[in-house]
């Protein structure tokens, strides 16, 4: 047992939201900022606590920390049911870590109207913890939308270049995607006839009375398109680089690192176990779309980027391709690899966005052609950036390595041709990743850089920036050296689901 007198999941969700409410009700700025540390730390502590105690917990249907709060909507089959299984635990932990880092980075960022900025970030954080802790599909969607709204406001108000356009485009794409997935989820609820949104109940019900094959195919298609927009599946990805290019740093960290995983998580947690025939039917089209579109086409586009943030945005779209490949492969190994990769990608891309903003503070530009030679002035920043790039490419020692490796191994059985294309993607990401690191930090400084450094001599990373970066890097290395800490629960949670898929 966890020995806590309260439900750690509920506290992780409620603490940031309560603080956000207090700020909205007029908490003075000094206190808002001080308490914000706690608002971001509590979810992290709770997440680490659940991770530590997960295996010792008594589990029902694979879920630990299961609690049920009545909402008075039992007639509809909606209740706030919280719990973690092996798939949601790693993501819950990752959300806690990335949220903490993003929060710390936001507090030191001196953003204009910091109070409101922190309030929105706290709402996002509470929503994200809720997404991964919800067992009820209604709340799973509810918390996602709750986390999504601050994104739009933050991009629109605090965003960089083209923020008006980026905010509009992002909002339209993401809401349309969310609506399509909502249609799919409600249709699933109606078609199942189980009158419950409780995922455990739905699984049990559909195990005895599976949906007809044609229904499964249709529903899986709807969910894939809806979630696909949210995860930036090619060709529905165009909002992502634009939006991340404009988003303020902490928001970009949380959105691309954590919130974007909602779609993949939904496919793995809901789509695969409940609609196995649909998943098998669409596996090949999905895999080809992901490998040709996301990995190769977007990969090549990423190489052509000159803007650091745009490049990170495109690279994030590209990496989502691997996740879809793992889902298409459908085996325990493939899907488990996706979960590992989601955690690793969330940590590494958040680290990269954080460092990119720190680079911008020193170079006053995002154009990589105008940078150069920063490593001599800011060795710590350079070292961290290079490490993050290595992680993102998937070098051994970092968590990303295990994710990509397992996906590729699983994919070989599924289709060697697709695997060959996918592995080519690794070369692509090495090209753009290393080239970016080289352009920014090494080589002779450009004229622009000399002018800038003469005007504002760049200082190395301050501790306020270092700590969040180090937290993320430490998590990447920890999982990289000890993947078993995450892969065991993932494996336990996936084995029955994959068996069902394989039997079809």
């Amino acid at each position, binding site marked *: 047992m966890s020995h806590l007198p309260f439900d750690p999941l509920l506290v992780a969700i409620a603490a940031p939201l309560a603080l956000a409410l207090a700020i909205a009700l007029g908490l003075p700025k000094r206190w808002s900022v001080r308490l914000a540390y706690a608002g971001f730390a509590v979810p992290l502590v709770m997440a680490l606590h659940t991770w530590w105690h997960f295996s010792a917990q008594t589990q029902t249907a694979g879920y630990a920390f299961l609690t049920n709060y009545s909402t*008075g909507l039992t007639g*509809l089959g909606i209740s706030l049911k919280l719990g973690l299984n092996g798939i949601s635990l790693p993501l819950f932990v990752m959300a806690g870590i990335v949220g903490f880092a993003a929060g710390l980075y936001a507090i030191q960022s001196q953003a204009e109207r910091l109070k409101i900025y922190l309030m929105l970030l706290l709402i996002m954080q509470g929503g994200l913890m809720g997404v991964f802790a919800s067992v009820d599909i209604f709340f799973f*969607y509810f918390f996602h*939308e709750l986390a999504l709204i601050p994104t739009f406001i933050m991009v629109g108000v605090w965003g960089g270049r083209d923020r008006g356009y980026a*905010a509009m485009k992002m909002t339209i794409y993401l809401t*349309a995607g969310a609506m399509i997935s909502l249609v799919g989820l409600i249709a699933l609820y109606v078609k199942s006839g189980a009158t419950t949104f409780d995922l455990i109940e739905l699984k049990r019900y559909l195990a005895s009375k599976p949906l007809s094959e044609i229904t499964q195919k249709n529903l899986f298609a709807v969910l894939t398109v809806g979630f696909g927009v949210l995860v930036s599946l090619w060709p529905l990805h165009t909002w992502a680089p634009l939006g991340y290019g404009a988003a303020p740093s902490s928001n970009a960290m949380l959105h691309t690192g954590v919130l974007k995983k909602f779609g993949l998580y939904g496919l793995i947690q809901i789509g695969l176990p409940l609609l196995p025939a649909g998943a098998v039917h669409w596996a090949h089209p999905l895999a080809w779309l992901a490998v040709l579109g996301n990995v190769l086409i977007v990969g090549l586009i990423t190489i052509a980027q000159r803007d650091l943030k745009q490049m990170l945005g495109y690279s994030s779209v590209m990496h989502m391709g691997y996740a879809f490949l793992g889902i298409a492969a459908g085996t325990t190994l493939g899907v488990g690899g996706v979960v590992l990769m989601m955690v690793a990608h969330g940590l590494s891309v958040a680290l990269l966005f954080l460092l990119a903003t720190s680079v911008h503070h020193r170079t006053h530009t995002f154009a990589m052609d105008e940078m150069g030679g920063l490593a001599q002035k800011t060795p710590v920043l350079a070292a961290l950036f290079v490490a993050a790039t290595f992680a993102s490419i998937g070098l051994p020692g970092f968590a990303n390595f295990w994710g990509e490796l397992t996906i590729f191994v699983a994919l070989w059985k599924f289709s060697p041709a697709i695997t060959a294309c996918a592995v080519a993607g690794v070369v692509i990401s090495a090209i753009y990743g290393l080239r970016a690191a080289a352009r920014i930090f090494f080589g002779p400084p450009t004229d622009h850089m000399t002018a800038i450094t003469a005007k504002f001599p760049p200082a190395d990373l301050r501790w306020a920036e270092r700590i969040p970066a180090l937290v993320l890097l430490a998590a990447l290395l920890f999982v990289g050296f000890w993947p078993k800490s995450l892969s065991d629960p993932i494996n336990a949670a996936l084995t029955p689901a994959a068996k069902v898929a394989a039997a079809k």
Partner: protein
Amino acid sequence: MKPNYTELFAALSPEAALIVGALLVVVLDLTLGRKKIAEARWHAAVRIALLAVGLAGCFTFASGRPGAEFGGAFMLDALAQATRYSVLVLAALSLALLPGTARMRHPAEFVAVVLFATAGFSVMATAQNLLIAFLALELASLSLYVLAGFDKTRPESAEAALKYFLFGGVSAAFLLFGFSLLYGLTGSIELNVIARELGAQAASPLLVVALVMVLVAFGFKAAAVPFHLWAPDVYQGAPAPAAALIASASKVAGFTFFARLLWSGTGASSGQAPAWMLTLAILAGASLLLGNVAALAQRNLRRLLAYSAIAHAGIMLLGVMTGTRFGPGALLYYTFTYGLATVGTFGVIAIIERAGRCQDLDDLAGLYRRSPLLAGCLLMFVLSLAGIPPLAGFFGKFLLFSQALRLTGLTGPAGWLAIAAIALSAVALYYYLIVLKRAFVTPAVAGTEARIAVPLKPALALLLAAALLLALGVFPSSALRLVT
């Protein structure tokens, strides 16, 4: 049966409180208020009116004995009580917006007419008898015509009133014709007798004519396509507090009134799927489509709200369809939360109008700098209209759509409508975001950057509406419990 007037008074004490309040407002203004300045008269009138509405709320709570009253002329069931509460809350919010926001003369008359309209809404919610229902509807409608044309300094206001009156008058005639046919068919004006009689006889062409007449009047009241033409002009021309009342409380009462008529009065007429279902589905589909698409093209904020109201009416009609099986909870929740968000939006418009113009979308530019409070409230209201969680608009839509999908399955008319409505919600989000983008991102036009002062009462009303939207969105069961 011997009529029991004590019981009748107990049942209708909320309406009595409203009427007495209205008379008191006028009398006090004509006697004590004649020497005072306009500002003080507004405040006094609104204070008395709020007191009356509060008393009406208490009486509603006290008159909570469920069942038919006065020989079946009134029905005090959960639906009636919940509608009364909703109407009173919305009327109180509209009233609280008045001080300082309206620059019209004759404060007492305006406030009294608002109270008369509220009494009409409240009787509409309880009426179980065609004649009383019609009288209540007319009391409310006539008051609203007056309110729409109250601003005599603007020709648009007169135009709005005239259009509203002409459309409303014709639709009332249709309704009365439909009622007389129903009376001819069944020999009674009481809804439960009508239902019994209609259930016993075979469907006749005359019944179809009667239903069409009733649905025409319903379409007008709900502003459903093709009876929607009055809405954009009225929303644009009427004074903002009047428009708030027309768009919110009037909608709630109208939907309860017609839903009760259709469900209990004529619902049983042809077994499983009532005859009016398909017509209603067509009206709903047309409203959804036209409302959402036409709203995209609007440059005027109030006309945009009117077209969005038409689209919402389509969703509410869907709620009337699902109510046949799942009860009135979803419909009432939706109309009430829609009303809250609309009152709030018109409240923001009214306060901006104090400082300058607020007609076009561009007039919102820079609102975030000019008044963070108004911008924040507008954000809540518009997002609730768009149906974004955790605000109440989301849960209303979610509940209605999931019920609609369960009503006839995915491929029935209600299922198709629900899927179309979800798809069109994405379209709707675009025009709602345009509003928010003006308020938050676009900088203010030169010359209008001055901060907007927000008077206390309207500010409290806006905050209350926003808080209710959030609370109802997070705890929807607290409101649904009232109805079921």
